[in-house]
């Protein structure tokens, strides 16, 4: 018996050829977030506090698909969602369809702690966020140039992509000098 913590920053078709300038910041962020969690749990914070703290940090990092850096809908908008759950009581809270809330995970915790419900979505969730005074930001805060490019590629291919799907390559592309916005060569 002892404390333990684990975190993820997304799964998908992550190419082993991922260049260092894209890999290293993500690895550094994972280490940073892990250390935040370890410090918190060593300091005696509850597991609920720890997971909220760590996920907030991951949300604030544009390299991951939550909060700032969230991927875009087909309309070019963000719709974020989050959930928390406590083991011994099975208390839980969840939110969906957020467009302005800086840290969705904290709003999910408020749903758990301040309402008789489990799950709020879209306008109701945004309204609840305002009532609770949680930090909100203009939707443009969450949208990164990289994700605008990813949406463009996905729309051109008429596909949806899970986290870290490799850029979609257009087979008709014959311009060998062409490269994708993230620096990945289309010709390998």
């Amino acid at each position, binding site marked *: 018996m002892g404390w333990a*913590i684990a975190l993820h920053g997304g799964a998908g078709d992550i190419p082993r050829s991922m260049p260092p300038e894209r890999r290293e910041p993500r690895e550094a962020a994972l280490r940073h977030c892990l250390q935040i969690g370890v410090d918190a749990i060593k300091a005696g914070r*509850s597991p609920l506090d720890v997971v909220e703290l760590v996920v907030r940090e991951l949300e604030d990092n544009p390299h991951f698909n939550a909060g700032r850096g969230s991927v*875009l809908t087909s309309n070019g908008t963000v719709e974020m969602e989050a959930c928390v759950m406590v083991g011994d009581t099975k208390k839980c809270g969840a939110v969906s369809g957020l467009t302005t809330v800086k840290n969705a995970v904290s709003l999910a915790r408020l749903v758990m702690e301040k309402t008789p419900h489990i799950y709020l979505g879209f306008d109701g969730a945004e309204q609840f966020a305002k009532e609770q005074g949680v930090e909100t930001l203009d939707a443009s805060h969450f949208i990164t140039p990289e994700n605008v490019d990813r949406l463009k590629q996905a729309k051109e291919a008429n596909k949806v992509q899970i986290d870290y799907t490799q850029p979609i390559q257009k087979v008709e592309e014959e311009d060998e000098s062409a490269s994708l916005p993230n620096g990945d060569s289309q010709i390998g």
Partner: protein
Amino acid sequence: TVGCVAVDSSGNLAAATSTGGLVNKMAGRIGDTPIIGAGTYANSLCAVSATGKGEAIIRATIGRDVAALMEYKGLSLEKAAAYVVQECAPVGTVGLVAVSANGQVTMPFNTNGMFRACANEDGYTHVGIWQD
């Protein structure tokens, strides 16, 4: 999708997950993250946070199935999570991180890679992307 699971020295567990969903998803689409028992689950045995393709994770009730295999079949956390990831969801659709009440940690995935990290009281630390 980002997520975190934690257990303290008394065996108290919690899980949290947050996401923007899928690139080019339809407006109004809800994925696995906020669905209790799919992308996020915790009980007195384990805490689970999943990532990947939400529709597959919901269909397979990934989080709850890990807990159910421990609860009803007596599997260890590692075996329960490995079974769910390898047998219950299509290849290339899911990864998860999980901890048990007795401090076990596991991070299986059936995608090409998963950004992940873990640590425990014994001093073990791991940061990884692909299968080692």
